[in-house]
């Protein structure tokens, strides 16, 4: 594996009219590496993702793919270069089948000329195979409606889809935010699987625990700028949380809650009781 980052941002600024959203963002991800982007709500994570995914063009600075500067003409262009984004709700359509979801926008067809027909059998077969390869064995029927799957399965389906379509960079936008503990663990396993297959993963989250489980490299985003940039094992969970919250308060708050819970059978403090 080469040492050139698959995707790199150099001093990227993004502003919408007079409002500056991103300042001097520089980051890079190599193949087989997971970069965790941490940040509180409103820190500019979404704008950063959209810039990486080709939705927004940076106002200043440059985006490099395989060490070469590129300008994306749109999300499709970024995708063609192997940059896939999986959003919080997975970009899946609840009232459509697994097979159709999997091949959305890239439908396999049979037939010729204007009579090209969506090849349901092939689509379902490949979709089920690929999803199972990622470790979701509960999906066996490609005709199943995605609305009947759990949140974690939907995320995994979306990730499996991106991997199948040759993604080299996987941008995961808060994939675990709306999930329960088990479901989140499932998604994290799939992130590891993607990493093992040599994908560069950008994992956006505000759950530090999830980030620490899979991340090799971390960047904390505060008010549109990178406030900290460090590698695995360089900082503790508490330190990261504090960074995200922008100060010491968070640790104090957590400590006081934990202290309270220890003495009160695990119940959190009542807000009105103070």
């Amino acid at each position, binding site marked *: 594996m080469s040492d050139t980052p698959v995707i790199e941002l150099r001093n990227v600024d993004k502003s919408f009219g007079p409002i500056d959203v991103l300042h001097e963002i520089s980051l890079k991800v190599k193949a087989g590496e997971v970069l965790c982007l941490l940040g509180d709500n409103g820190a500019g994570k979404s704008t950063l993702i959209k810039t990486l995914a080709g939705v927004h063009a940076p106002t200043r600075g440059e985006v490099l793919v395989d060490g070469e500067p590129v300008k994306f003409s749109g999300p499709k262009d970024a995708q063609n270069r192997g940059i896939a984004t999986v*959003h919080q709700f997975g970009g899946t359509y609840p009232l459509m089948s697994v097979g159709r979801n999997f091949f959305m926008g890239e439908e396999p067809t049979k037939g010729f000329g204007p009579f090209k027909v*969506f090849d349901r059998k092939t689509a379902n077969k490949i979709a089920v195979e690929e999803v199972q390869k990622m470790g979701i064995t509960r999906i066996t029927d490609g005709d199943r409606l995605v609305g009947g*799957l759990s949140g974690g399965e939907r995320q995994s389906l979306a990730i499996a889809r991106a991997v199948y379509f040759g993604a080299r960079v996987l941008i995961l936008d808060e994939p675990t935010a709306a999930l329960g503990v088990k479901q989140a663990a499932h998604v994290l396993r799939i992130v590891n699987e993607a990493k093992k297959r040599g994908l560069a993963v950008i994992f956006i989250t505000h759950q530090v625990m999830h980030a620490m489980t899979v991340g090799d490299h971390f960047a904390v985003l505060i008010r549109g700028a990178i406030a900290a940039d460090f590698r695995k094992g360089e900082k503790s969970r508490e330190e990261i949380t504090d960074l995200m919250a922008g100060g010491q308060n968070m640790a104090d708050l957590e400590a006081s809650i934990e202290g309270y819970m220890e003495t009160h059978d695990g119940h959190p403090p009542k807000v009105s009781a103070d």
Partner: protein
Amino acid sequence: MTTQSSEQASGFSLGSLIRRPETGSLIGFIVVYVFFAILGGAVFLGAPGWSSWLNIAAEVGIIALPVGLLMISGEFDMSVGSVVPASSMMAAVLSGHYELPALVGILGGLGVGLLVGFVNGLIVTRTTIPSLIATIGMMFAVMGLTLGLAVLVKGSTSVSYVPDATSKQLLGTFIGGMFNVSIFWWVGFVAIYFFVLHLSPLGSWIFAIGGDRESARNAGIPTNKLTITLFMASGFGAAFVGIAQVMTYQAAQVAGGQSFIFNSIMCVVIGGVLLTGGAGSVIGILLGTMTFAVVNQGIFFASLDPNVGSIIIGALLLAAVLSNDTFRALAMNYATKKK
């Protein structure tokens, strides 16, 4: 047509039958048809009955199909109500008043529909105006323009046009004195829309836009282009009906398309299309249209008070939405239970 759809369903297991979005509308159609068959008797079951409701169904159906596809993609089109008279007026003015060849009139009329659809699509995709409002605005604008055109050219609200034999034969004749030729056009349109929505990859895209527009765009689907195309299709459908009307009745009226607005939406909803988009089927829309037409015409055969017909259609609409929700929930649960 009923046998065709029940045959199709019988090939599947009960589970996949429930999963199909048109199951509710099929049951609705059977219930309504049996009800009026009992009340209407032999006349309703014979050719006069079939022709009367099929003629109505074909007219509404040609508009309901694209309106249904639009609804699946999450948009409404109210402007069809004034595109119908606008296109028949355009055809009558071009071919009747100015005595140009019938083809010019037909293309002119269809052009009106495509243009209105294109403008609708532009407004909806380029601005934040919801399609419901945008197309109501277009409806009034087109209505005004149609009236203006008729008064300007002819000085009256009605323009007559006697089509040549071939055009009349193709677009406005009654086969056997009963069955309007539109029925065959309708069947043709059903086949085309079925292909587009359920067989071609484009169909997946239409569902995806209605399910989650943002994700669809992220998946690289040309959402704006597709939305504009769908609006143009519904304008085309409405214009087609307008032309068929002028060929049939040999005159174009300024007003008189308003009933198509709610009727087409009703057919689509009875046919199981989700109002908020993302679900529906062409077979469902077909069944919904047939149900609507049977109620609409069955009333006369059953010699009931016409007002009862409106009540039945109203109740049917509510029942359809309720049962569609139930069937949709069943479809999801069926999938999860299987494990």
